[in-house]
């Protein structure tokens, strides 16, 4: 159960961005790979806890789940994996170890409100 420390890192990261850009954050958009080792539901409930009493309190965590995509050397192409229990090309069955995506644990965007207009 390391989702709480992950959630705290997300809050910290978003807080820094908010401070730097002088904005208020409504939502944090996160990409979560199927091989990130993080469970979405656990992360969502931890986020609420982690953001409590911070400028992020009340903000939402929007999680986009990213499936595993491998590169098949036989087909010479990228293929989504049908199961993380079988790293084989779904088209030709070749075992594939090369992962193109699926390890993401990345804050991709922030939904914000401007707090103070930038002086022009």
């Amino acid at each position, binding site marked *: 159960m390391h989702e709480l420390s992950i959630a705290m890192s997300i809050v910290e990261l978003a807080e820094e961005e908010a401070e730097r850009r002088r904005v208020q954050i409504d939502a944090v958009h996160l990409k979560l790979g199927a091989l990130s080792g993080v469970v979405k539901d656990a992360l969502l409930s931890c986020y609420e806890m982690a953001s409590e009493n911070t400028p992020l309190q009340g903000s939402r965590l929007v999680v986009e789940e990213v499936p595993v995509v491998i590169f098949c050397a036989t087909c010479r192409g990228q293929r989504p994996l049908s199961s993380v229990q079988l790293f084989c090309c779904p088209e030709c069955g070749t075992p594939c170890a090369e992962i193109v995506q699926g390890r993401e644990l990345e804050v991709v965007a922030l939904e*914000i409100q401007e707090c103070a207009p930038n002086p022009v």
Partner: protein
Amino acid sequence: MRPEPRLIEVRKNVLKQNDVVARSLRDRFRAAGVFVVSLVSSPGSGKTAFLEKTLTLLRRNNRVAALVGDLATENDAQRLARSEAPVKQITTGTLCHLEAAMVQSALEGWDLNQLDFLFIENVGNLVCPSSYDLGEDLRLVLISVTEGEDKPLKYPTIFNSADVAVVTKVDLAAAVEFSWKTAYDNIQAVRPGMPVLKLSAKTGEGMEDYLRFLAARLIDLRQAAAV
């Protein structure tokens, strides 16, 4: 008037802080020419016995040391001290995994130049350690025959993140009707091409092959550094 919400792009890795520390550790390890192995497994798989045997045998010809992560006790460090290799315990408290910064502070005062191999035993857990790079050269996942052949299918993420799998307690294989082929196939299903070794830390069966594997990797590391 309430302003319209808008979306700004950020693109930041959540574990960036850990990755930065891990990268600097890896640079230090490389500069010192020390080969670093991290050990992951479920609780009770025999990690400490395996590591004790590894340290004892490797010490004959190499300079070795170990860091051991544990939630609450220092029992592991005391057991490993029997190998007479330098050992330091990292007590993680309630944290279920090691992070690069913990390794960094545990190494304070150690001269890495005096080492050939450094082992980092993670907390017994097949879930959380998978996300954290510790700067290691090799992530070794250990499973014992008593855990059953389907561990790789239950924990594909950690097996996929590993570089080598070691099946241990093979002296008990017959008693628990362990199928080597099924276990091997399951490991290959979640991590195609991963080397798999089998051994018994208790009887010593298979240990020599494993030590040869490590020795070859140390030579590779130093040759790569010399180029």
